[in-house]
């Protein structure tokens, strides 16, 4: 009975997500120039990231066990993950205005999860598409050139870790934005999270031991883009495999708890 209910709800939420995606795309296509500009900006950012890879190839440097081909794989994962993150990022940014201007009022009264409604409603296809396509190309190229195995375990494991990484990204990067319920304006906090995200520009191996530990266990940004790559290379230990699954679950529950607390603190706005 419970399973049935769960599946029914799952179906309902997936359908709603589909409607959000459709409506977001329709809204964005209303403004053609803006849509194209959005894609162009994201392509520009991506080119900058590609320059790093180009430099690595030119110089022919290896970082620890990583050859330039491996680095391309890691940067590809980073670019693709950025695409996923940017897909729903506009919601995180608009959270503070929803709180400041009381726009949350009309979402609270809807019989669906408020967190779902508020954090996954507007989806940015322009940014997502540019990064996703480029990321996948770099991953495929890097994977192939580095001669990494293409078999069921590596591909399915990789996809599974990417899914975990998405849950972790969503949860970990949502938490700072939730501060807006208390401090209202979060521009500073948003900039800080963007800086944190960019730590993944390059594989974690370029950083010192302590940085790596902090980035893996305390603010696990490295788990997001490094673990899937390390797994394909056969360099991810069993313990780390467990952490790759545990960290997203842990952070999701933390985000959920902070969310509940934040919404309780919501004081709406005058109208």
């Amino acid at each position: 009975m419970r399973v049935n209910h769960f599946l029914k709800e799952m179906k309902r939420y997936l359908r709603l997500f589909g409607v959000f995606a459709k409506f977001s795309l329709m809204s964005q296509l209303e403004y053609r120039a803006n849509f194209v500009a959005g894609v162009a900006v994201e392509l520009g950012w991506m080119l900058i990231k590609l320059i790093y890879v180009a430099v690595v190839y030119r110089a022919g440097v290896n970082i620890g066990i990583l050859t330039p081909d491996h680095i391309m794989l890691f940067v590809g994962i980073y670019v693709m993950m950025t695409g996923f993150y940017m897909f729903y990022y506009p919601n995180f940014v608009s959270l503070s205005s929803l709180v400041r201007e009381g726009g949350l009022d009309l979402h609270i009264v809807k019989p669906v999860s408020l967190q779902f409604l508020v954090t996954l409603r507007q989806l940015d296809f322009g940014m997502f598409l540019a990064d996703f396509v480029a990321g996948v190309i770099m991953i495929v190229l890097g994977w192939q050139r580095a001669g990494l195995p293409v078999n069921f375990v590596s591909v399915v494991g990789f996809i599974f870790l990417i899914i975990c990484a998405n849950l972790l990204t969503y949860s970990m990067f949502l938490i700072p934005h939730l501060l807006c319920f208390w401090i209202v304006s979060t521009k500073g906090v948003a900039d800080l999270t963007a800086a944190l995200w960019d730590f993944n520009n390059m594989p974690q191996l370029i950083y010192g031991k302590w940085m790596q530990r902090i980035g893996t266990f305390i603010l696990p940004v490295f788990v997001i883009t490094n673990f899937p790559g390390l797994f394909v290379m056969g360099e991810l230990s069993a313990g780390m495999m467990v952490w790759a699954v545990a960290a997203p679950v842990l952070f999701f529950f933390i985000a959920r708890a902070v969310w509940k607390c934040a919404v309780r603190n919501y004081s709406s706005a005058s109208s």
Partner: protein
Amino acid sequence: MEIIKVEHLKKEFTYYKKAGGLKGSFQNLFHREALVKEAVKDVSFSVEKGEIIGLLGPNGAGKTTTLKMLSGILYPTAGNVDIDGFVPWERKNEFKRRFSIVMGQKNQLWWDLPACDSFYLNKCIYDVDDMEYKKTVEELAELLDVKDLMNVQVRRLSLGERMKMEILAALIHKPEILFLDEPTIGLDIISQQKIRDFLHFYNEQKKTTIILTSHYMRDIEALCSRAVIINQGQLVYDGQLEDINHLMGDKKLLTIKCNANADPELLSAYGKVREIKGSEVVLEVSKGKLKETASGILANLPVEDFNVTEVPLEESIALIFQKEVAS
């Protein structure tokens, strides 16, 4: 049958005082003096199923805050609310399916898409059956006279048209209870009238319980038989609309037009002179003495035209507010 029961509802907000200017801003950065504002102090009332009540009060009286607590948007500081067996701020989905809230200054429609898309989203959110949904939208669009606007982007609609669409969107799931917070704000007289007519009809047909706040007395007079008046967070009146004048001393207004320029001195013997517009004088007299006064004036003065009206509701309500402030 009572569907809404509000008992000793109270809401406090904490806010910070800030002195003007840059200096004040810097001081504010290091030290903030927290102040507490009691938006709603002690409000109790109940609403019968199918009833329309007007929630009245001046700006900042606590009307919207009360509605927000009734719809579960805000947690109260103290007090109880029971709506059909639910506590609003527990925010149960089952409860949310039973009501809708429309706020004149906020919108739920997707700005860049035609309103029909937002209706469809609400259909999915509220799990409304396909056939049922189609029927409801058609019926409401007909009643609100927006059939031809279904495929126009919301941003291209006029304020009045948009408000109609907001109301339509709020009714897709056929709520039993409807909270309307200034639904006619900023609209022209014709749009106001249309929305009023629609709400009146809808309430009669569906027996939807409605709580309405509005600054337009015409809305209230046309739709509500009962008013709950709050001022400075406190309930100051709960009763029939028609009894408000009674409460304020049962006054009537006599408008008299004389063929010669009327001497207000002469008329003041019959009652309180309120207004003189050329040869027209408005006189306030008590209801009990109306007959006597009128015949006296007609017998002794060169009256050309004569009219008896009620004291405008706005005035009585304003008087209630002032009385509360004075006491």
